[in-house]
């Protein structure tokens, strides 16, 4: 294998037996050979050795592993030319707070939604809302507290607004996904106080490749719901021009489950109902269909690059039936007339089951325009100047029985300008500004958030200092946000209540800071202690919601008196990796002052009569009124993972991974709802360079601390397995075959973080078959 790596033409030449996409320079800052530590996740079957000094060639090879280049090692001569090596920023490399998923481990976990893809990661769970929605939950936090990034800029969908809205990022294109809780999150503002999930798919070409044409084609089939998921990507590079093109199509039918969809005990307890329609073996209206694609083009100069991309996603999915229409005896009197009709032929469209108990579906369209430019090493001390801008035209319609009842629109522009600098060899960092301009509305029959304009800007810096075996990181950010509702009053249609006057404009200043110390007490191990202070300004829906929200079956009341939510978190982490084992331990304590949450007022809104009352005869026809409020909360817990090689067979290595994570979240008097339970388990792996097999068992305990007005969830056993095989094709091609089995025990899983857990359990047993051909 021969390798030439030159900073000048940013060109890589290598003997490629397997195809990998480079992690481009966006993630790279200057890493000087002198004594800096860095790390990477194992790519394919590399034996892990994650903490090294750059003193010889073998470490360069590992460094290349960091870039996702090396997947198989072959003892061949290497020629090196001019060498200036870029890696991820030091602060990013604090692995106890960062989890980088890429390569085969990412591809094996691929799923329809980001939450489902990441649910097995430490500290992460999946807030599902049927199979069409899966939003990552990190240490019990989600929504407006977790920033979803696509190539460094926000996804700007409506997923933070409500749990029934999907994240508008198609995960199958992801080349890497980074889950971060570290100091770098300060770059992303108050909405990242709970963490960052950054998906990199490099749809804007950023690196010159030595191949004129490269790409991949992937397809998979899921037996549960007969799901298909196919995608392709083409990369074209010629001289200074880089082009990318990608497309995907995915479809699945209703999710198959063991037992009944709706938890009958819950319904009996909650609504006094025993006679209702309950599906057996599947969850009706959880089918989904999505398609889309992107095209990107870049000019790749020697000292700079500039590129843009356009992407479009159409996503249509169903929402599992909730309490609405649960009781067949409430059809405004129609239920008494219809049984008398002997012949409804010709009127099935209005008297058929679907018309009487209509499904709620969401039809989402997302068009995104990205621009990115970078200037490499413009002057001494400046490593990189980077400008990014994305404009997202997001909209979705919520339909009931085919009729639109809400139209959610979110047009957002986000810009980011950053300078990566260094002073000498030991001091480096970033300075940047970021701004967003958002127009949001949720209008229609169900209008629960008025048309609102939100503008924010932030200025930030993060600095890293390297002193002997210590790395000290600090950062600060100031952010200003203005929220300006177009409406002067909000009213309930048909209600006897007086209209609610709104303030003209709401302004918030937020200050965040971070400080961490990392001690590399051996070349193989480090301890990291960090303090994070973050302020999050209230979001639009938290301030201005006012009306029934049929998808969540709640009546949301905003609160214009909300102040900044303040996070004070301390993290202590240990990473230890040697030839004999790999250990990762994190513990955290997170005090959230003025935590914004939805308080159940104990009062109901009767949807059909449009009346607020304290009690309803038919609670299934009423929705509880939730008002946004603030109170202090605390979150604490841990994540732990230990990987051990068990035995080296002649044909493969056997390894064992033990893992566990836990988060406890509570207010003073009761518990924060929708928090994942204690989870622990083990994974046994057997494999070598060409193939792998693993079986994983995870036990999730019951969640008895479910919060006020919430029901406990039972524990469950989750057994899964996977196997994959790499096959070289011709000189530059590779075929990767894989099979996965999920929920092998076919357990009924009521996911405690899911809003709809009592109506829609997680999918039952499934087998996924697929291939990926790359060239």
């Amino acid at each position, binding site marked *: 294998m021969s390798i030439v790596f030159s900073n000048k033409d940013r060109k890589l030449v290598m003997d490629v037996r397997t195809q990998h996409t480079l992690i481009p320079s966006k993630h790279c800052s200057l890493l000087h050979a002198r004594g800096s530590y860095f790390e990477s996740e194992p790519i394919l079957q590399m034996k892990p050795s994650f903490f090294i000094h750059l003193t010889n060639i073998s470490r360069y090879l590992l460094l290349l592993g960091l870039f996702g280049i090396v997947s198989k090692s072959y003892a061949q001569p290497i020629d090196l030319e001019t060498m200036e090596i870029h890696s991820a920023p030091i602060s990013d490399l604090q692995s106890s707070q960062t989890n980088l998923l890429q390569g085969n481990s990412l591809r094996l976990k691929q799923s329809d939604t980001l939450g489902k893809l990441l649910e097995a990661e430490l500290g992460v769970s999946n807030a599902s809302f049927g199979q069409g929605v899966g939003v990552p939950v990190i240490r019990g936090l989600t929504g407006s507290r977790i920033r979803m990034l696509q190539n460094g800029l926000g996804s700007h969908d409506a997923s933070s607004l409500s749990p029934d809205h999907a994240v508008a990022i198609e995960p199958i294109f992801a080349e890497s996904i980074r889950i971060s809780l570290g100091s770098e999150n300060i770059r992303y503002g108050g909405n990242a106080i709970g963490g960052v999930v950054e998906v990199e798919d490099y749809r804007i070409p950023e690196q010159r490749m030595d191949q004129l044409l490269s790409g991949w084609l992937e397809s998979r089939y899921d037996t549960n719901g007969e799901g298909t998921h196919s995608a392709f990507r083409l990369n074209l590079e010629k001289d200074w021009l880089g082009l990318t093109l990608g497309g995907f199509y995915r479809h699945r039918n209703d999710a198959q489950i063991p037992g009944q969809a709706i938890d009958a005990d819950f319904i009996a307890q909650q609504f006094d109902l025993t006679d209702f329609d309950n599906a057996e073996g599947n969850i009706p209206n959880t089918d989904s269909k999505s398609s889309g694609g992107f095209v990107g083009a870049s000019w790749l100069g020697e000292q700079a690059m500039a590129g843009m991309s356009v992407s479009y996603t159409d996503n249509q999915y169903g929402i599992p039936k909730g309490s609405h229409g649960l009781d067949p005896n409430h059809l405004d009197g129609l239920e008494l007339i219809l049984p008398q009709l002997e012949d409804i032929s010709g009127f099935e469209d209005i008297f058929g089951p679907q018309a009487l108990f209509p499904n709620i579906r969401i039809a989402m369209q997302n068009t995104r325009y990205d621009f990115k430019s970078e200037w490499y090493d413009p002057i001494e001390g400046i490593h990189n100047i980077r400008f990014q801008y994305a404009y997202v035209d997001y909209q979705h319609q919520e339909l009931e029985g085919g009729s639109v009842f809400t139209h959610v629109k979110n047009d957002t522009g986000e810009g980011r300008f950053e300078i990566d600098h260094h002073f000498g060899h030991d001091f480096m960092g970033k300075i940047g500004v970021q701004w967003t301009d958002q127009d949001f509305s949720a209008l229609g029959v169900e209008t629960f958030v008025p048309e609102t304009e939100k503008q924010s800007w932030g200025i930030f810096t993060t600095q890293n200092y390297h002193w002997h075996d210590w790395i000290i990181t600090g950062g600060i950010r100031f952010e200003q946000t203005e929220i300006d509702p177009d409406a002067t009053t909000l009213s309930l249609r048909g209600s006897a209540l007086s209209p*609610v006057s709104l303030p003209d404009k709401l302004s918030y200043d937020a200050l965040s800071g971070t400080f961490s110390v990392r001690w590399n007490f051996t070349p193989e191990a480090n301890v990291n202690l960090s303090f994070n202070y973050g302020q999050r300004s209230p979001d639009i829906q938290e301030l201005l919601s006012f009306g029934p929200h049929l998808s969540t079956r709640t009546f949301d009341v905003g609160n*214009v008196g909300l102040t900044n939510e303040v996070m004070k978190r301390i993290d202590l982490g240990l990473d230890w990796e040697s030839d004999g084992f790999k250990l990762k331990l994190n513990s955290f304590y997170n005090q959230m002052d003025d935590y914004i949450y939805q308080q159940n007022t104990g009062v109901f809104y009767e949807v059909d009569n449009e009346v607020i009352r304290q009690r309803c005869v038919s609670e299934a026809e009423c929705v509880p009124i939730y008002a946004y409020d603030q109170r202090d909360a605390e979150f604490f817990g841990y994540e732990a993972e230990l990987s051990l090689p068990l035995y080296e067979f002649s044909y493969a290595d056997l390894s064992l991974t033990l893992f566990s994570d836990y988060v406890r979240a509570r207010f003073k008097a009761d518990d924060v709802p929708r928090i994942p339970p204690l989870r622990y388990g083990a994974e046994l792996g057997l494999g070598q360079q060409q193939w792998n097999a693993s079986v994983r068992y995870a036990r999730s305990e019951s969640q008895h601390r479910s919060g006020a007005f919430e029901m406990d969830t039972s524990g469950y056993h989750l057994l899964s397995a996977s196997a994959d095989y790499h096959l070289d094709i011709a000189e530059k091609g590779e075929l990767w075959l894989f099979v996965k089995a999920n929920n092998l025990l076919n357990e009924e899983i009521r996911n405690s973080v899911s809003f709809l857990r009592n109506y829609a359990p997680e999918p039952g047993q499934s087998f996924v078959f697929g291939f990926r051909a790359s060239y």
Partner: protein
Amino acid sequence: MMILIRNIRINRLSKLLCFLGWLFFSSTLTAASISHLDVEVWGEEDALFVGYCQTPGVVGCDLDGLFAELGLPEDGLPIEAATGKLIFLADFQDLSGGEFKTKNPGFLSIRNALLPNELLSYRALGHLRYWDASQSTWIQAPQDVQIALYGGLAAGAGVTTDYSACSGQLLCFNADNFSTESNTIFSGDGISGNEELVIDVTSESGILHTHLSFFLENRNGEPGGPTGAYLIEMQLLSNARSTPSQPFLILINGGLDNQQLSQALAALADNADANNPVSAVPENPIIALSIKGDVDLDGDVDRIDIALILLAAQNQDSVQNLNVMFDVDGDGLISRQDSHLAKELCSLRLCQIPSASQAELVQKVAVFDTALKQLTLNDVQVDKQHYQAVFQQSGNNLFTLQSADPADVPYTFPAYYKASNGLLEIPVLSVNNEYYQVTLRNIGDFKFQLESVKKIDHLLN
């Protein structure tokens, strides 16, 4: 097509006498849970009236069906003989989800029977009465039982919509007195809690159809109560009329079979004073119906209308005065073709995709009559006070205040007057069915100068 319907102007005296006569002779009744009778409401000038809903085929309006169910004579009317008060029937067991709660009877008004955006409330009267089946007598309800009635909540009834008084929340509930202000308790001792609560606000067409929540429970609020029948009394109020309705009774079955229930009803009606009660029965309004296919007279064509026509066609009902609206195509027959035609006319959600205008209906808080040159503001908010104001156009872009009276009409889009700058902002002014956003400036001497006018395309928010 304009059809004139006389809803029920039948000889009520003869019906009542027939009914009373039957009560003495009925003997064979069966079954439990009964249908209910909705309370139909209408207004005439300054007075409010209630009566039995008898719109053909509509649930809650089928008086004859209820009588048949109870085995009563067809022409009877349930009226308390001693007082002439109408009796509306309901049943605690008529809905799934529990034996001790019901949302019947409902309250409804047909198109144009009330004013647009008229706020209806109820006022609880008397005390809870109980039919003791073992003694066959109406008595004051036992000490350990009560009926809790949960009406709608308006500002003032423990609900606040001023965020400055709600710690920023756009809506809040006063926990201190919420439990006592949000419901009405009927017990043998009388009325407690909030005697008056909101029923609902009528639509732009004066239509209303809403239900309240009735719970049978013990004094601790736990569901349940002795088997029997329960009788409560109330009258209706309107914010647009000074004369409330006549008091009426609601009889709610609490587990009696039909025979026992008939006896309970008979006990109320059998002391007939032939000189008094009949005159107390109000005449339902004469309705001008202008919507083809709207057979239940609720102001729109919806699936219930279509189902009712289908049922009438299936039953081969002939066209009569009372059901002439079922003959949608006017061919003299009620057929499935009429249902198909009504389906095409159906314009509501889940029947057909709604047009934007239907999703954007608003209450007309402000109307400018171009003929009279009169500007009527039904709700002007000055600080926290609400007024009803009338202006007369007295020149080009000049309006003179004619009257301003205190009002508590809660409108969706009230006008705002700020004394600090003298501006009167009218967010939605209706002029010949078009909408405008208007600002007037107080120039003194009760005169207001037109400051700005902007046409509004849509009325959301």
